[in-house]
């Protein structure tokens, strides 16, 4: 049986985002992928907290994580990260300001991380680190745009369908309660939308 070691998995993730234009970039990405440190998170444990915290770039190897934004004494789940996806607070990593969000493991998760300092280390990853940050910024903008498309759907069923079209295995990666929060639906509406899906199938 062929096994893939975890840094290869991270490299695969990096290559899925990063368009290689020079041969040395692949090599630098390979070096970079070996710099990630892997940690296991239990459900409810924080990847990052609100305020000043570690300015890390995270890569979810397995499990799922959710990013929450605090507002008017309430919290909303604003982004979901599943295996094979990068997670980061753009406040901390890109804009260098205290984070308005926190990110927690929604299920038991294995997550790799690298600090901004190592990412931008001039000696090892001279060109790829800075380019990667700008790719992540674009990625984050596009992701917010895609989520806005989902949330603009006025019926629960269409909203769920739009979310599934963005993340096909959505229903398998997060608990129903978090999914209802994420979609801005009551649990009853979510179950109605799910059962209408079942009827269609």
């Amino acid at each position, binding site marked *: 049986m062929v096994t893939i070691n975890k840094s290869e998995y991270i490299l695969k993730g990096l290559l899925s985002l990063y368009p290689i234009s020079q041969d040395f970039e692949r090599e630098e990405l390979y070096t970079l992928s070996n710099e990630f440190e892997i940690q296991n998170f239990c459900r409810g444990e924080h990847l990052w907290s609100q305020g000043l915290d570690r300015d890390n770039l995270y890569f979810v190897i397995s499990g799922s994580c959710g990013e929450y*934004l605090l*507002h008017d004494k309430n919290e*909303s789940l*604003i982004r979901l990260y599943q295996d094979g996806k990068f997670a980061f607070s*753009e*406040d901390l990593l*890109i*804009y260098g*300001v205290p984070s*308005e969000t926190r990110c927690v493991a929604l299920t038991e998760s294995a997550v790799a991380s690298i600090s901004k300092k190592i990412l931008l280390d001039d000696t090892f990853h001279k060109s790829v680190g800075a380019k990667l940050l700008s790719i992540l*910024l*674009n990625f*984050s*903008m*596009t992701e*917010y*745009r895609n*989520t*806005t*498309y989902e*949330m*603009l*759907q*006025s*019926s629960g069923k*269409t909203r769920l*369908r*739009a979310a599934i*079209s963005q993340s096909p295995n959505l229903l398998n990666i997060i608990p129903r309660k978090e999914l209802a*929060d*994420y*979609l*801005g*639906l*009551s649990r009853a509406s979510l179950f109605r939308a799910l059962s209408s899906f079942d009827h269609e199938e």
Partner: protein
Amino acid sequence: MRAYFEALPVYTPAFKSTVDSVVSVLGENVKKRKGQIVEELTLHNKDFWFLKSGFLKEMYKNPFEKEDALFSIIPPLSIFVNEDTLFNDLHPQHYYTTYSDVEFIRFKYEDFERINESHPLLQLLYLSGTAEIQKNRRARLIMLRMRSTIDRINWVKNQRPDLFYYMDRVTLAQYIGVSRAGLYRALEKADLDQK
């Protein structure tokens, strides 16, 4: 546009010469009447656009409905871009229609790159401007997740009065992600509760 940059949280007097360089290369004002598709903005371009006056509707093809849908309303004194082209070098997926008479100017991407070489602080202005857009998007997503329509309406009223007092009801319904009927029901109920 100078005022826009000066209002960014990151701005200090150290940015003055960078902003001067940007302002000196801006294109001519483009004026459009209400109710038109703005062709200049639908072409493949990575340029930065600054809306001096009026409101633009940012539209997209909704894959789940028959009609094109409103993505956002751009208020005056905003910078906006074709994200598909700037970020992914794709043809713009969104298009813009004038919601009122508008006036806008172009800041060409080539000029951005050229000025960035001599004034690297421009990159910080770019990041700060992007951070503001992200913040607005994040805030709007919270509103879109509110379960009660009247809460969504109140959010727009309190957080975006610049848009609320300008939008007609149909546009408001699209902006907050509810059907027209749902919006009218919520407004009627709020009226009854007040009485």
